């Protein structure tokens, strides 16, 4: 890993990263194919599809067929990337992902966009708070949640050259936290320690990293020093890093734009329990309920996914009598 933190504000949207990187991959690797289920325009890929008509396939609103067909293509050497909104990239085609994909060791990359509160005006029907749980439970699926444009681009390039089943979740139009400088490299299965403190550790993914870093600033005013870790690989989880950084900490918090059941929070809890960790755990995430319509900002506050919620979780555990 060669990671450089950045302070530069770039405001690059994930969909733009997807467009640029997929165009680059199409032009450098003749086996790359891209499939979508009538969301080509929605993800801003129209010009890419028009430029590479032979290897960009709009499958229509047929997500199940798209997933199995992509798996079929991969069995003949193609390197398919498929995209849909997160609920339709995972929840709707779970058996196809499981059987056509992972079970028969196919080679497909799935990009699920607008997970969690990013569903925004699409509302509860389009809100996926379970995609990490569903993909994590399938053997041999690598589950990734990039934090910024640099990491997302690195992931797309990296998984183009690897064999297996991959799930990547990211918001489409998010004005990103600029976390990593261009040229940073990562390692799948390895978390990134963003800052180190001695009292509290926050494991966060995606947009929740910004909240975690903001929470750190607030907690430091109360003389609590905080470790923040970007756990962009939910599976395989960096268990060694979890074990290492929770040592001596009083409180561990996980922060994710996902249900507290089955995602990052569960994954960290499993490692802590298996290792007999004495630290107290709080899972900041969506508390076992469905989504609804609203702006991302409204929904993030409503789901209690702000920095203040992380701070409150830490303080509640600090004050708890064990």
């Amino acid at each position, binding site marked *: 890993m060669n990671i450089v933190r950045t302070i530069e504000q770039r405001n690059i949207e994930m969909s733009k990263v997807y467009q640029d990187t997929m165009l680059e991959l199409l032009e450098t690797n003749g086996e790359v194919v891209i499939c979508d289920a009538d969301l080509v325009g929605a993800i801003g890929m129209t010009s890419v599809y028009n430029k590479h008509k032979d*290897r960009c396939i709009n499958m229509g609103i047929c997500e*199940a067929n798209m997933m*199995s067909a992509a798996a*079929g*293509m991969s*069995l003949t050497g*193609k390197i398919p990337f498929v995209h849909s909104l997160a609920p339709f990239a995972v929840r709707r085609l779970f*058996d196809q992902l499981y059987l*056509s994909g992972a079970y028969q060791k196919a080679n497909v990359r799935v990009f699920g966009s607008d997970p969690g509160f990013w569903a925004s005006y699409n509302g509860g029907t389009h809100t996926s708070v379970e995609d990490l749980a569903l993909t994590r439970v399938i053997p041999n699926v690598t589950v990734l949640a990039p934090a910024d444009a640099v990491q997302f681009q690195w992931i797309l390039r990296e998984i183009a050259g690897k064999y297996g089943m991959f799930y990547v979740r990211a918001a489409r139009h998010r004005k990103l936290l600029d976390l990593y400088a261009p040229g940073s490299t990562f390692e799948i299965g390895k978390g990134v320690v963003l800052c180190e403190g001695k009292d509290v550790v926050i494991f966060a993914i995606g947009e929740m990293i910004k909240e975690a870093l903001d929470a750190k600033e607030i907690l430091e005013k109360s003389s609590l020093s905080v470790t923040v870790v970007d756990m962009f690989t939910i599976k395989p989880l960096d268990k060694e890093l979890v074990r290492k950084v929770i040592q001596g900490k009083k409180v561990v918090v996980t922060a994710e734009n996902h249900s507290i059941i089955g995602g990052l929070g569960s994954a960290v809890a499993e490692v802590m329990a298996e290792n007999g960790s004495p630290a107290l755990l709080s899972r900041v995430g969506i508390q076992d309920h469905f989504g609804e319509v609203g702006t991302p900002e409204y929904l993030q506050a409503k789901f209690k996914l702000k920095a203040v919620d992380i701070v409150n979780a830490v303080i509640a555990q600090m004050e708890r009598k064990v």
Partner: protein
Amino acid sequence: MTQNLKLFSAEIRLATCKMLLHRGFGHLGGSLSIVETLSVLFGEVMNVRPTEPSWRDRDFFVLSKGHAAPAYYSTLALKGYFPMEMLDTLNDNGTNLPSHPDRLKVPGVDTTTGSLGQGISMAVGIAKSFKISKKDNRVFCIVGDGECNEGQVWEAFQFAAHSKLNNLIIFIDENLKQLDGFTTEILNPFDLKEKAAAFGLYAVRADGSNEKEILDAINECKEKDTTGCIILSTVKGQGIKYFEDMMSNHHVKLIGESINEMTKAIEELEAKIELMKGKSQ
């Protein structure tokens, strides 16, 4: 051709019956209804190398109705993909011959199937991939008529026709029954040929117990500029009167009378094969 393919059909049927009798249970009805189609595909039509199952220029076969694996395994063993003795390991603990085809375990199996509807989608993906690469490989896929209950089948049909995948030929095994009974009573499929045509496929009907009719239909489809869809008129349990007449013959437990009937059928098939071999010499 006809004599050899009839002989091959009889051998596939015999091997299938023997393996199911050995195991004592299995998906008998839907295995026997596709025997003649497998015979035509693997006996004459498909460009494959049994000694080199992963040969890049091979034609691909997808058994979308994966539960008919016993007939598929018999065909592969007879072609020399693996030893005939392996057929007796069907559904053993730790076996390499599971009830549904597994591409990671069975030599010659191109795709893992069993969850209905997914095989045909894999087949369209494979065919599309060959089109993208401008390769001449063909893809053949057998779908069950019961399987056509699955909406995914129709997504795949529509995609195949839309993409003019004339390197793909689809067979619908219309044996008229699914697990719980007659297809018309469980969920009426109506006219599958008309429906396939309405989805843009080139649809023809053939007698699925007649090798020549199947072969003629395949050759007819090969001439077209879109995906061919051959509706096979078949009988569940095809070729053995006792099992054809058995109402619930999707998955059969061979106990009591059915053991005697299966043993008798095996003896008759062995005699028939001997006779055919004698005539061909």
